[in-house]
């Protein structure tokens, strides 16, 4: 029995960004599959390349190497002409609710714009569709003639989601969608995203640095460090049995709202290495408490450490 082809399939993606001081290897060999209807969480700290991966998938960055297959079609480095019709299938929700909406456009105009660009509704029907979309994300449609600055962060993020849903995409890339929101508002938006996924049969690529949030929404989780994936597992496996030293340190560093719970902190030395001159071999070795000689010589491949669980560490496999 062959598995259905994943909705999104990325192989050995590399994105190098030229800067004054050198070339930043923002993404350096990332591969993953995203089956339709599921949520893959991409977790990492700043400089891990997770946002770059998302932006490359939607065509905002050009990869120097690698393959991106969306619904069976190769789109890595494709021309805008090829990407244009695919824009209906993939949309993105951005992090900053204050920068992701045009301050000069009313909510209605912003949400209706995708409808007009793709000719999805006749001009007269746009308003009704806008109202439907706003209700879908839990906003009062009578507010649609207001301007973004009249809303706070949570509602603004909902507007951004409504705009993304206007073209009825199959895949939604969420780049830190709740990081800029207060805790209680964050919960509202996360609940909304879960509802929408179930109702509309969406697939999510969820990028965040907040491990607890990622745990809440994801089916599978991939951990990134300095442009590479170091561990992939199902959600439960990753949080219960993290295998890679970085994942272990990351999880132990997250503050938990449970005082008095005994925790072993795996302290990491120093700071992440420079992405312009990454360390030889395993990029994590400069901070890894378990680094040995071979770590400097060979780049560890992602090796299986359990069912559907891989880790890029010389100690495994």
């Amino acid at each position, binding site marked *: 029995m062959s598995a259905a082809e994943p909705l999104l399939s990325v192989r050995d993606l590399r994105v190098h960004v030229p800067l004054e001081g050198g070339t930043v290897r923002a993404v350096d060999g990332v591969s993953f599959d995203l089956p339709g209807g599921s949520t893959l969480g991409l977790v990492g700290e700043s400089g891990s390349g997770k946002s770059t991966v998302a932006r490359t998938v939607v065509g905002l960055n050009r990869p120097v190497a690698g393959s991106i297959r969306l619904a069976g079609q190769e789109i890595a480095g494709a021309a805008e002409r090829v990407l244009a019709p695919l824009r209906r299938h993939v949309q993105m929700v951005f992090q900053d609710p204050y920068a992701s909406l045009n301050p000069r456009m009313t909510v209605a105009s912003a949400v209706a714009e995708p409808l007009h660009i793709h000719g999805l509704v006749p001009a007269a029907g746009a308003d009704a569709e806008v109202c439907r979309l706003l209700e879908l994300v839990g*906003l009062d449609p009578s507010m649609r003639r207001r301007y973004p600055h009249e809303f706070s962060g949570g509602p603004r993020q909902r507007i951004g989601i409504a705009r993304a849903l206007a073209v009825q995409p199959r895949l939604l890339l969420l780049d830190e969608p709740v990081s800029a929101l207060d805790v209680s508002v964050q919960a509202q938006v996360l609940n909304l995203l879960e509802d929408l996924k179930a109702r509309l049969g969406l697939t999510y690529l969820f990028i965040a640095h907040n491990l607890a949030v990622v745990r809440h929404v994801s089916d599978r989780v991939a951990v990134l460090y300095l442009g590479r994936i170091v561990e992939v597992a199902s959600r439960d496996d990753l949080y219960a049995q993290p295998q890679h030293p970085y994942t272990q340190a990351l999880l132990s560093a997250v503050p938990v709202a449970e005082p008095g719970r005994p925790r072993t902190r795996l302290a990491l030395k120093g700071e992440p290495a420079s992405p312009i001159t990454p360390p030889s071999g395993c990029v994590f070795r400069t901070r890894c408490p378990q680094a040995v000689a071979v770590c400097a010589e060979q780049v560890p491949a992602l090796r299986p450490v359990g069912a559907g669980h891989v880790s890029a560490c010389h100690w495994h496999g």
Partner: protein
Amino acid sequence: MSAAPASTSSLPEAGTSLGADAWRRMRRNRVAMAGLVVLVLVSLACFLLPPLMGMDPQAVDARRGAQPPGGEHLLGTDTLGRDYLARVLVGGQTSLLVGLVATLVCVLIGTLYGATAGYYGGRVDELMMRFVDFLYGIPYMFLVVLIMLLFEDEARGNPLPVFLALGAVQWLSMARIVRGQVLALRHQEFVLAARLTGASDTRIILRHILPNVLGIVIIYATLTVPAVIILESFLSFLGLGVDLSWGRLVAEAVAVINPIRSYGWLLLWPSLALALTLFSLNFVGDGLRDAFDPRSRR
């Protein structure tokens, strides 16, 4: 289903745009509003009074030459007996029009040029801005005088070359300012979102970039008008400008000063008009800048 956020029911359904917000803040700025009122009054006086009252700035009357203010001639007469009130008002028409039109020219050229350079970036931007740098290097008065001399014959009475000359010099700053703003906007997430939705470059520039540049363009345009008026006055002072404007009147007044009689009022009235208008324009420009301050971003 997530709960709808509590709407503040006291607000109307139509939103207050940033423009409306800015106008509200502007209204509270007394100095700026005073400037605006003065500008409106001066403009009305210059454009409405002469035709309504049948004033003729060119009517020569040698018997009434060089009369001080008072009586029939409120502001006096010049050496050729022409009514000075009429000359100041009609001269104002020219000065104001020159300011307005030249600024419009500058805004149009500068905005389109700067937006294109800023949006496309890369080599296009480099080439376009190097050209601007090159033009910047030419002393602007030299450029303006050159243009004026080239069109000297046509310029007699016709202010068009003056508009063009002044606009041609001022657009450089506008282009730089707009380019800077567009460069910053280009990477904003709402522009990326529009690109992702499939919006064409044209649509992005017209609907997303330019409206957000409008604020800064308005501010600098309002501050360009006085600069242009001064430039025009200087040109007229040098004898290169138009026949009748405030600057020209000042030039003529200075020319007739002699040790016996100074004809003070000939210098006073156009200078006063210039000063009043320029002050008002600057206050309004400052007021607009404060009103558009993007600290409304909450």
